[in-house]
């Protein structure tokens, strides 16, 4: 498989969030700020990269009957490891993401890639796939987090942009704003990007 295609698939054509609608829980839950979105995106990318690599390496040793539980154990191990490292070195982000760090385990994107890609393709391809799907996911989270933070608090990555005079739309950083912003962004993605690809 062509590496360029894998990258393009992960980031645009099969974007995990805007096209496949995978892993919606963290997408909606942690995107109150661009920083949290970036942190969650990178944590998920790290887990995806790790699990894709290990599963591609182990695929011939795992009997197909217990393949799903084995994948889950591998994924859960990486999630716990990333959680510990984050807690030790970036505790603020670790606390901000809270329960959604252990919940990376049940992000359907990761198990989905293990089942449909890593268990069928070479290790190199799986590494590239993990990275590009992860980056596509991260990109979507940062865009959504940025939009919500900009309208909801008047800043991006914590940097004040719109000034005191801007009446912050608090609703954008609250739960309803997550649904509304993602709905509008997906519609925009449908109009602009998909038209250009076709």
């Amino acid at each position, binding site marked *: 498989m062509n590496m360029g295609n894998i990258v393009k698939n992960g980031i645009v054509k099969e974007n995990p969030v805007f096209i496949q609608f995978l892993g919606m829980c963290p997408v909606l839950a942690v995107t109150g700020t661009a920083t949290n979105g970036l942190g969650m995106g990178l944590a998920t990318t790290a887990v995806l990269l790790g699990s894709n690599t290990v599963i591609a390496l182990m695929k011939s040793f795992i009997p197909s009957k217990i393949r799903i539980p084995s994948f*889950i154990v591998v994924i859960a*191990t990486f999630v716990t490891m990333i959680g510990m490292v984050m807690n030790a070195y970036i505790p603020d982000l670790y606390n901000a993401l809270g329960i959604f760090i252990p*919940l990376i385990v*049940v992000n359907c994107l990761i198990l989905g890639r293990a089942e449909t890609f890593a268990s069928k393709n070479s290790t190199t391809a799986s590494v590239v796939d993990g990275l590009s799907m992860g980056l596509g996911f991260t990109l979507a989270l940062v865009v959504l987090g940025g939009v919500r933070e900009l309208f909801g608090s008047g800043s991006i990555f914590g940097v004040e942009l719109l000034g005191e005079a801007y009446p912050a739309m608090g609703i954008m950083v609250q739960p*309803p704003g997550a649904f509304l912003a993602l709905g509008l962004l*997906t519609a925009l993605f449908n109009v602009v990007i998909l038209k250009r690809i076709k």
Partner: protein
Amino acid sequence: MLDLSVSSLFAILVSAILVNNFVLSRFLGICPFLGVSKQVETAFGMGMAVTFVMSLASVITYIVQTQILERFDLQYMQTIMFILVIASLVQLVEMVIQKTSPALYQSLGVFLPLITTNCAVLGLTILNIQENYNIVETIVHAIGAAVGFSLAIVLFAAIREKLEIANVPQPFKGFPIALLTAGLMSLAFLGFSGLV
């Protein structure tokens, strides 16, 4: 020492159903919420299946946490243990229902495999531990979470059935309009904050 005051249990219940609704406020279980909500009937089936697994999983993970993980200082194995408990529980429930009640299996069977990766179940079991609930509070919290999940998904399905026949602008067809609808529901549920 069990704190069994009825008012605190009631607060946990109402909070889990309305104020901190698992789907609309905590964003747990979004995948089935968006995926299995095109018809009220299937949404109801999913709600029942989740209720069943949530209640069982809460009790078992509570025992695993207090009797195994805390006793042997293995808290860092929490995520792995809990997800394995949930995955095997789902398998077991599936087999038992298939043998004992083919009718129930017909209506719930298709949803069961989806529940393993439903983050509402794993999220619930982790929250139980995080909030330091005792066994009674854990059960009440599980019931509240399950009712809250079912309520949200059934209401949402009822709205989507109506949306099917509405004239939606092309770019909004499908997921975008579903997300906007969910946003409005979430807005309505925001009105419950401060209730408890």
